[in-house]
């Protein structure tokens, strides 16, 4: 059975018809062609499918697409405005080699966004716990932690008015 779903994704409105069995991650990927949201387990364990729903991180493999009706979503594609205009968190991952295969990266970046919104100056321990819901098998997390530390520095050094879309996104919820 198909049901209509109206969602705002990355500030753009979409009206789609989805199978009632479809998960949100599949809707984003297959219907809206936003393939930066990845699927690693389908059970909410790995965090590769992390997106923001109404300003808070969720695992989009554990939410039915139909349940996203009327909601506001931010995916990794919503963070940058072009190849040369990445979000400061993404820039920090690039500059500190906070990724290898890149499969967990979008989810990791969105969890970082949540973390830095909640705790602008996290300790290493807070960072490690903040991303503990996102599994990475390549990096051993060390350069990811470093990337997050550097991202926090960059974001905090900016005047409040020009804080990244991050904070704005998160505060909407």
């Amino acid at each position, binding site marked *: 059975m198909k049901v209509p779903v109206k969602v705002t994704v990355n500030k753009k409105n979409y009206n789609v018809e989805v199978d009632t069995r479809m998960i949100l991650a599949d809707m984003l990927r297959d219907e809206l062609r936003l*393939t930066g949201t990845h699927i690693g387990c389908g059970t909410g364990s790995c965090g590769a499918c992390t997106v923001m729903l109404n300003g808070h991180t969720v695992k989009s493999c554990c939410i039915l697409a139909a349940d996203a009706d009327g909601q506001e979503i931010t995916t990794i594609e919503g963070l940058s405005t072009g190849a040369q205009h990445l979000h400061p968190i993404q820039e920090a991952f690039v500059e500190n080699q906070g990724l290898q295969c890149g499969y967990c990266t979008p989810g990791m970046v969105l969890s970082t966004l949540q973390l830095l919104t909640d705790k602008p100056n996290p300790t290493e321990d807070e960072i490690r716990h903040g991303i503990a819901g996102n*599994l990475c098998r390549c*990096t051993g997390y060390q350069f990811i932690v470093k990337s997050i530390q550097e991202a926090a520095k960059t974001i905090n050094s900016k005047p409040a008015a020009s804080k990244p879309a991050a904070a704005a996104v998160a505060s909407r919820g």
Partner: protein
Amino acid sequence: MKYIGEEILGLPNRQLAAGKGQFVGDVQLDGMLYMAVVRSPYAHARIRGINTKPAEEVPGVQYVMTGKEAFERMNSITESYDTAAMGAKSVKWYALCPERVRFVGEAVAAVVAEDKYNARKAADLIEVDYEELPVAHDPEEAMKPGAPLVEPDWGDNIMVTRDFLRGDPDKAFAEADGTISGVVKAQRYTGAAIEPRGYVADYDPFKDMLTFWASTQNPHPMRVFLAETLGIPETSIRVIQPNVGGGFGLKIPTFQEEPLLAYLARKLARPIKWIEERTENFLVGGHAREERLYYEAAYTKDGRVTGLRAKVIADVGAPSALVGWGMSFVTAYCIPTVYKIENCRVQLFTVVTNKCPWNAYRGYGKEAASFLMDRVMDGVAQATGIDRAEVRLKNFIQPDEFPFPQVSGAMIDSGNYQATLSRVLEMIDYKSFPKMQEEARKQGRFIGLGIGQELTPEGCSMPRSTMLSGYDGCTVRVNPSGQVTVLTGVTSPGSGNETGIAQIVADTLGADIKTIKVLQGDTDTCPYGLGNYSSRSIIMGGAAAQVSATEIREKMFKVASKMLEVAPADLDSEDGKISVKGAPTRFVLFKDVASTVYRDCYGKYACDVEPGLEATRYFRHPNVYHQPEIQGRFSAYPSWPNGVAACIAEVDPETGFIKIIRYCAVHDAGRIVNPLMAQANLHGGIVQGFGGAMYENLVYDEAGQLKTATFMDYTIPTAADVPSLDVEHMETLSPFNPLGCKGVGESGVTGPLGALCSAVENALPHLKLNFNETPLTPNRVWQEIQRAQQRGN
């Protein structure tokens, strides 16, 4: 050299950080169908019949296929590791099992439907009538006469054996001051890349061309395997490897779903996608490691190991066409690793059971050999009362003894084990540790230090092998405007070799690295090559790139020498300029030389060189012996990186919980092309090692059911579980590789096994614990502590 040895950021970083990578799951084609696979719920059963009717009635179902069709219309799957060349028994494995299933998850039928939900639904409705057969579950039970047979035609469950002998172990044991013995047990575990496997197949009947997107490490060998299994020409297949979300060996072909999907796409002439679910990945995506190593060691009272007997029993699961079973051979092949033990006997028994087949996984059996030797060295230290590091130093192969022929015939190229161990002990402040331990004890904390030595031979080159032949190719093309295209036969499943290869080409040509594009993973554009395995992408692929780039440089120097009116030997190049040595102001731009070759081939500068600036060259490693060398031995690994870790861990005796406080590692892989990437690889390897040492376990029950088939049961380390690591590199160059490189990809994964076992024992010395078995889960550690206390320790 401007780039080699520099920390260059990964070339695909921006794309991946933006979420703009293209992984196989992202491939979306018009009219695409989806495949779902019906899998055996039994570990061993005969298929009496299949009723596909209920599936065919599901809306949108296009086709249902069973093993009968696979048997009649397809060849058995080509082996990716030639069993005949190794004297091992083999099976005919089909894309779908025609009559018998041998492990839970083995594919028996497939459904193709308009969407994945109905494909799955239809697959679940297929009724298979199974007759259950007895299950071989435990490898040692499976070796006994009368055990249930995985392959009735074989007569037993032993796939292959080896018996390596040097010196006179019996004499060494008779003359020893003392002996120790025990058994080291490694559990079954796996790589668990965050991206599961997946494939998309699309067939164009007019061009007779099958395009196959695959999350694989080895596109060219995969094309050979598909062609042979489907019985079609290689030229009618194009394999494309998009971004790959981690491989670690597990994405080496050949799996059942590969030829299955390719066959169905050709049959239906429609694009079809199959993306593995996580549970499928745990059931059938390849396992590793499950080995028992029985050992006896003879030593002198001054701590020298004079004799070793080791018996390796490897449970490789059901036989298949995958390369994994070869890992058992490599365990035996590497013993006694970095140590010179004159009298040695190593026996191998590779045993099949009704479990998931092994596939290659980072470490490839080397980890078990090093883990065993750590336990032997610690055991001798314990028995003699000599310091653990001192015992290792006394037994190392010396730096001037290379190339060193090992018991198995392995020819170890070079190393300086003394230097790496000494350095890691400095890093962890080994001398001060007893004081630190005492201080902690006063606070009621139990900390211990352990050492884990590792030897990870790389560049695997096996005789008569499609997959593992041990060479690679590279095309370097300087374009008319002076930018450089590099096409490699090796691939990067996230390991960063594209960046390293760009560095090597930039330095060889003297080009600006920003002008270089590296393209990988497409059988229609890249030269034939074997892809990514055995840390070979720099040692083989990088060397091939260097050879190709050197040929182009020589040609460009020839033209430039005429332009500058000097001899080619007087020229040098860097930063996109070819200049006269010692006179840097006399130069021509790299791009102007390229332009001259392409645009003025009859002119005075370029008339005596062949037009075009493109070279495809292949590299074969000198330190491989497939024909018996002087001592009649074969050597399949040209390159022997090594390393050592020292670890401080705290144990809570009340809960058995282990916390890693400090982890230092020194690693020697010869020349490091990109220290940043090498460091990144080491971090990842070490943390996978922590997973294997402490958490990960693929548990089967006696009926052959896998009990840990999700990330909730099979736990891999999270960021919160691991500390920051302290990793350094040493560079003992390979004398055989033109770059001096030895390979980094499997490094780090082994050290945690020995280091953590040793650290836990050392944290509670009064209990005289003996941890020869991983994983060190809190439950196991706690139980061992209880037992020791009951023994009165």
